[in-house]
C-alpha cells in the first residue's frame, strides 16, 4: 500500500500532465507526419526528381509562401517528433541520472539549434543577387 501511496503522491505532486501530453503529441504529430513526409518524398522524388534538386529549385519553390509554410511544418513536426522519440530511448537505456541529463542536454541542444536555424532560414531567406 505504501508503494502505491508513494506513486499517487508523486503523480499528484508533479501534476504529471507532461507524459500524457507527450504521448498524445506523438500520436498527433505521427499522423500529420505520415501525410507531409509521404507527400514531400513523392513530390521531390517523382514530381521533381532528385537529380534536379539544387539551389535554384529551392529559390523558385520558396517564392511561393505556401511552400515555406509546408517546409516549416515538416521541420517542426519531424524534429519534435524525433526528439521526443530520442527522449524515450534515452530514458529507457541511459540509467545514471547524471549521464541521462548529459545525453539529453546534448541531444536537445542539437535538436533545438537545428529547429531555430531552420525556422530562421525559412522566414528570412531572400535572394540577394
Amino acid at each position, binding site marked *: *500500500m505504501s508503494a502505491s501511496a508513494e506513486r499517487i503522491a508523486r*503523480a*499528484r505532486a508533479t501534476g504529471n500532465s507532461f*507524459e500524457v501530453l507527450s*504521448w*498524445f503529441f506523438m500520436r498527433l504529430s505521427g499522423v500529420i507526419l505520415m501525410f507531409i513526409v509521404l507527400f514531400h518524398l513523392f513530390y521531390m522524388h517523382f514530381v521533381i526528381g532528385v537529380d534536379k534538386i539544387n539551389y535554384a529549385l529551392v529559390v523558385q519553390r520558396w517564392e511561393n509562401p505556401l511552400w515555406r509554410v509546408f517546409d516549416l511544418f515538416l521541420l517542426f513536426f519531424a524534429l519534435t517528433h524525433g526528439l521526443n522519440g530520442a527522449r*524515450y530511448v534515452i530514458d*529507457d537505456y541511459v540509467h545514471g541520472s547524471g549521464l541521462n541529463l548529459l545525453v539529453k542536454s546534448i541531444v536537445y541542444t542539437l535538436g533545438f539549434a537545428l529547429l531555430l536555424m531552420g525556422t530562421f532560414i525559412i522566414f528570412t531567406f531572400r535572394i540577394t543577387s
Partner: protein
Amino acid sequence: MQVTLRIKRFNPEADTQSHFENYQVEVEPTDRVLDALQTVKWYQDGTLTLRRSCAHGICGSDAMLINGRNRLACKVLIRDLGNKIQIEPMRGFRVLKDLVVDMEPFFAKYRQVMPYLVNNDPVPQTERLQSPEEHERFEDTTKCILCAACTTACPSYWSNHEFLGPAAIVQGHRFIFDSRDQLKSERLAVLNDMTGVWRCRTIFNCVEACPRGIDVTKAIGEVKKAILFGKT
C-alpha cells in the same frame, strides 16, 4: 518419440554462471513440455528445479522461456515444438535456481496497483449487481493468472525494472473499468507515471507471450486513453 531438452541450469551453491545441459527423453508427441521436464526430474536428474502447481494452465506457476518464447510448460505440446527444445528461466528476474526465478519484484508491482475492489457504499444485502455490458468492459483483463510471461517478455521492463510492467497494468485495467470500483482516480494516478503506462512503447511482446490470450497492449492503450480523456 525421442526429444532433446536443452535446459539452462544454475545452482546458486555451486555455480557462478548458468550453463546448458542436454537431456534425452522418450515422450509422446501429445505430451506437454512439463511432462518432459518431470520425466527428467523424476527419472534422470532429481536436482532439476522448477515451479509447477496445477499443471493445467490456471495457476501460472510454470511460465518459462521455451524455444525463445515465454510459454506455460503445461500448455505447450511437444509436437508443436519438434524434437529439440530449449528451456530457460524467464528473463528480467533474478534466477534462484535452474528455472525458478525470484517473483517478489513482480508481486511488489502487482500490489502497487491495489488489485482489489474498493467500494465505500453501504454493503448491500445481495451481490453488487453489474450488467453483462458493464462486465464485458473489463472481461478480458480478468483472465490474467499472474504468470509473469508478459512482464518478462517486455523489453521496456528488461531495460528498466522500475517499470510496473504489463501484468500490473492489466490488473489496474481490471479495476479501473469495473463499474463497481470507486478508486479510479487513484488507480489512474498510479499508472500515470514514467514508470507506469508511459514506459510502454507498444512493442506487443506481451500480447504474443500471454498464455491466456489477453490483448495486453490494447488494455494498456485503454488506460492511456482514460488518463488522456479523464473518463473510463
